């Protein structure tokens, strides 16, 4: 006899003997459960399937409770939510692991580095590239230039050195670009909405790509003759060949993104027009103005902005510079500028930096290579005056020393009283930073710095349908991948906005742990792959790409160094799914956490007790489905674990190595070893 009842207002018909959970699931109402499976007996351990029934004083476990005619069941009352949420919070309070590896968590764009590194290990290059595209387009370009926060976070350095993640990405992307099977963007069904993006740099391109995936019509307006922004006009050819960038932009264009170049805001297009004509506007114009040094003489001819200098090359022009050049600043733009100056024939190239090498924000490899190419670093010096000295310039440098650490933790340089030095120069290149120029972005509220003020979780400005992302927002200029990350989230928010949904982007919750070198003591040390490239002599007189890229063998070997920190079961893990579903506060119930060794279940199966939620599905499946009873519960209470029988020698008689326990596990606690 079937029974009719409602759950969250949905009418459900339960067959005779059917539980609330089963009948609701059939009717499309999802009730979370960790310990229930159709092929094993009802167990009732996890308690997250509880529901509230009108007129029934206790919450019912829907995995076992059978509905009665006319039951009015709710799955979303405050009481149900509290009971479920607390269960997840309690489980997470004793759950140790890494849902995602530090590489992914530290990538501002959230790229699943571990995944593509492992795909590269397996020779699955197209899959690897597809993995990158899940986060952003432009893998070949970004792979070459990214300062890779992923590698800084990579735990392999606890063994010896981080995985060469960025170059691996470039390797896979190059492979696929060169193949017949290039990556093609899948666009969503047309929504009828249109979005204008101002600025075709990494942020604008990423947003355009994402918005096309959502199915919106996208037009990018850019003031330069070609798309690419700073990737084209800020990064020299020897680091990022523009042919690669062109290739990758063409993939975005192929997805139906309209690209309008030579469109300058306020000149060729009017901001308020765009705001009116388009459903949404994303401002991603970057930060293109070199920060002035505020020293006397900086307006003298021969003193040029780093961005202007590099930009000329991007336009295909060759800026004229003299034999003696000083570049002021310690960031990557400074490195690009000094190395470009060398390539343009300058004989004496200085980098003037007021702190020491340790504090330089530029990537180590850039500094090293610049040194190899003959750049002279003048650390602990600060320009205080530039004067014309005949045809030449004279720059007076204040000698500095390091004082107390500042807010950023870097030790602040302080002048050494009375100590200065003069250097004779033909040109001075200012590369101490870039700021946004928001002229033409009318009506949008700006920060004190002159950047666009936008909400960090919605990317919205003060104008309802105007969003902003990348270097032009809030804190100002940063690295490309950060702008990409913002753009991707902004696209998500814009999509929500266009859908009429809650706009806000919410960072998903991940379980994370701290590891130390001790945790990896048993690992064999394997050298990080060395990128083959031109020698300093071969490269300093030209703009040829300095790296050749990894060989396939090199790439695979490098990828195999990955420690696979992120949980193998992330995509199927029900615990993390529900944890995010219920917006858990995992730090709410801090307390003792277990740290136990892995347990070898059989030769091919291992158990990580620190990820186990004790749903019992593994041992119950072993007993009830596989009919083996090889594993069982061990100890009790807080210290309960899953354990195989013993002694191991007899394992074969009991374990079929069928892997059903692994399949049954709702988290990553059980895994096959190979």
């Amino acid at each position, binding site marked *: 006899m079937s029974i009719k009842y409602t759950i969250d207002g949905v009418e459900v018909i339960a067959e005779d003997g059917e539980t609330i959970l089963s009948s609701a699931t059939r009717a499309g109402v999802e009730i979370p459960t960790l310990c229930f499976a159709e092929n094993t007996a009802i167990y*009732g351990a996890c308690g997250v399937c509880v529901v509230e029934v009108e007129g029934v004083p206790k919450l019912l476990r829907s995995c076992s409770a059978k509905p009665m005619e006319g039951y009015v069941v709710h799955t979303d009352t405050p009481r149900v939510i509290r*009971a479920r949420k607390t269960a997840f919070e309690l489980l997470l309070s004793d759950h140790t692991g890494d849902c995602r590896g530090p590489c992914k968590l530290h990538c501002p764009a959230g790229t699943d580095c571990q995944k593509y590194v492992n795909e590269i290990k397996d020779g699955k290059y197209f899959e690897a590239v597809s993995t990158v595209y899940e986060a952003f387009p432009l893998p070949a370009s970004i792979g070459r230039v990214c300062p890779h926060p992923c590698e800084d976070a990579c735990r392999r350095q606890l063994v010896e050195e981080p995985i060469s993640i960025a170059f691996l990405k470039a390797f896979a992307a190059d492979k696929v670009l060169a193949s017949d099977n290039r990556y093609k963007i899948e666009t969503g069904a047309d929504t009828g909405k249109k979005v204008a993006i101002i600025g075709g740099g990494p942020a604008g391109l990423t947003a355009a790509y994402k918005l096309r995936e959502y199915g919106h019509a996208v037009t990018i307006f850019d003031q330069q003759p070609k798309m690419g922004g700073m990737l084209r006009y800020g990064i020299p050819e020897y680091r990022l060949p523009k042919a690669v960038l062109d290739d990758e932009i063409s993939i975005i264009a192929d997805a139906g993104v309209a690209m309008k170049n030579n469109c300058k805001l306020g000149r060729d297009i009017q901001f308020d027009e765009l705001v009116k004509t388009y459903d949404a506007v994303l401002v991603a114009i970057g930060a293109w103005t070199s920060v002035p040094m505020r020293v006397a003489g900086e307006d003298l001819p021969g003193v040029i902005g780093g961005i202007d200098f590099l930009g000329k090359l991007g336009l295909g022009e060759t800026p004229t510079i003299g034999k003696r050049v000083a570049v002021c600043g310690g960031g990557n733009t400074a490195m690009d500028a000094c190395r470009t100056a060398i390539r343009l024939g300058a004989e004496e190239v200085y980098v003037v930096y007021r702190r020491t090498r340790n504090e330089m924000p530029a990537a180590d490899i850039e500094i090293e290579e610049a040194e190899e190419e003959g750049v002279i670093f003048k650390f602990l010096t600060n320009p205080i005056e530039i004067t014309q000295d005949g045809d030449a310039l004279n720059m007076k440098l204040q000698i500095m020393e390091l004082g107390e650490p500042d807010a950023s933790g870097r030790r602040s340089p302080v002048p050494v009283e009375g100590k200065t030095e003069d250097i004779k120069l033909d040109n001075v290149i200012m590369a101490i930073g870039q700021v946004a120029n928001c002229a033409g972005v009318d009506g949008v509220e700006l920060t004190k710095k002159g950047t666009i003020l936008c909400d960090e979780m919605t990317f919205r400005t003060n104008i309802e349908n105007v969003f902003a992302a990348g270097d032009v927002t809030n804190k100002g200029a940063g690295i490309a991948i950060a702008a990409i990350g913002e753009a991707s989230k902004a696209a998500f928010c814009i999509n929500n906005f266009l859908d009429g949904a809650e706009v806000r982007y919410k960072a998903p919750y991940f379980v994370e742990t701290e590891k130390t070198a001790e945790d990896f003591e048993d690992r064999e040390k394997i050298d990080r792959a060395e990128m083959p490239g031109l020698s300093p002599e071969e490269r300093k007189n030209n703009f040829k790409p300095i790296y050749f890229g990894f060989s396939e063998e090199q790439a695979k070997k490098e990828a195999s160094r990955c420690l696979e920190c992120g949980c193998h079961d992330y995509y199927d893990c029900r615990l993390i799914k529900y944890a995010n579903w219920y917006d858990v506060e995992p730090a709410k119930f801090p307390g003792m956490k277990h740290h136990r060794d892995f347990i070898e279940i059989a030769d091919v199966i291992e158990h990580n007790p620190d990820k186990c939620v004790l749903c019992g599905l593994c041992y119950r499946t072993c007993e009830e489905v596989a009919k083996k009873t090889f594993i069982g*519960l061990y*100890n009790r*209470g807080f210290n309960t674990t899953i354990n195989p029988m013993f002694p191991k020698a007899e394992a074969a008689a009991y374990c079929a190595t069928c892997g059903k326990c692994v399949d049954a596990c709702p988290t990553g606690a059980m895994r096959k070893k190979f």
Partner: protein
Amino acid sequence: MKIVVGEGSCGLAAGAGKVHAKLDELFAAANPSGSVVTITSCIGMCFLEPIVDLYDGDALVRRLVHVTDADAQKIYDAVNSNDLSLVDDITITAEDASFLEQQTRIALRNCGIINPMSIDEYIARGGYEALKKILTTGMTQDDVINEIDKSGLKGRGGAGFSTAFKWRAAKSSEGEEKYLICNADEGDPGAFMDRAVIEGDPHTLIEGMLIGAYAIGAKEAIVYVRAEYPLAIVRLENAIKDATDRGFLGDNILGSNFSCKMRIKAGAGAFVCGEETALIESLEGKRGMPRLKPPFPAQSGFWFKPSNINNVETYANVAWIIANGGDAFAAMGTAESKGTKVFALTGKIKRGGLVEIPMGKTLREVIYDIGGGIRNDKEFKAVQLGGPSGGCIPASLLDTVIDYKALGATGAIMGSGGMVVMDETTCMVGMAKFFLDFTAKESCGKCVHCRIGTKRMLEILGRIVDGEGEEGDIEKLEELCNAIKDGALCGLGQTAPNPVLTTIRYFRPEMEAHISEKRCPAGECVKLITYSIDESKCIGCSLCAKKCPANAISGEVKSPFKIDADKCIKCGNCKTVCRQGAIIVK
């Protein structure tokens, strides 16, 4: 004359065995009066153990208390010379005797009176008459259940569920094979009612169970006894054997069609097995992890057959009810709760022991009139009922009547009968932590809320008593309590928050003092107190200094001593040994 030595576990622990041996030795050597030395079990006056009763025929002529083996000679002389004044000094006082006089004993009616190893003594006091009645007067199963229904008997294990209802459900469940189970896994820390019944009157249990087995149609009865009760197991085993030999157990009992066998299953140390479905799992030889209900044991219990489970005290009332009628039982107690209830009265009480009183008496009557009030005349602070599933009731509610509903309304529960009295020196936060520590250790680990939730609650309480509590901890505890009540799988988990919730409800200021002022008002939390010496009281005897394990006390003999707070490990030895009361704990 009959010399009866009280040999319950508590009497034996207090030295009754030695007294008995000495008496045996004396009377075996020469016994001019032809007296016999025999035993009985606990009369409930544990505070007076060892107890020796002198009977003339059936009449109790003297009750001797705090008897030592050195007193044996005196007893021997008194008995043989028939001059009982020789034992005046060890005779119970009238005041102490009133402990028993204020009770109404049904479940305990034979305890401390008969020899639990003698079926004849049980029969002599009307034993097995109730069984005879149902089997020989044509009482049907329903008649029996109706009689129990009339009595209003509710489960004495704690939850207070109608016994007749359970029996009826088990009786009406389909199936030939049914089981009747006795839950003697008495695990509440601070409760020993069931042990006393089994040790003192095992046949009462057997008879009650047989009546139950008859009522539901079970042919097998099992007693699940805690592993820590070896003496109870020995006496019950003996009783089962005797009852079988006399035809009260086995096939065609008393010539009827009713057959039932009985066996004992010893637990192995798991409090959760007091939960009926966990108990069933344990009976089946498995880990004692609760099953989901429904189905209830009445439908699907032991080996998935209809089973009825009651606790010892419940069964101990059954024969009396059948013999005297349900109405007689229902005449006692309140509208809501009928009959009597046995309590194990312990803690900071003058006269601790087992008491059986009619429902409806107030807590005050039990604690002050029967228990004689607080030891050392300190201030009453709270009484804990229901152990780890119950709560602490404060002084302001001392006039609460003992009845399921009234006690439930306080946030505590009737429980199985543990009644632990606390005075002003007991820290209520410490008590809450004590119970959580217990539940966390005893959690089977199956469900999330209990396995991790009780652990987290314990950790928070641990921080609070260590002076590391934070603002918001009480709210966090409340939140956990509510979620655990809703989410835990079995009764153990669902009631685990009760001790904490009642502490918050009645002793919130004390909890707050720990958190905000880092102060333990009861002076018990080691990390929050300091020991010092009251110079005006110290006579410089140096005893404290000699007993201090940390060498933290120094001074000149005959002048006041001092405690070095840095060295003091707060063990309390000094306070224990000081005869002047000069040790100050703050």
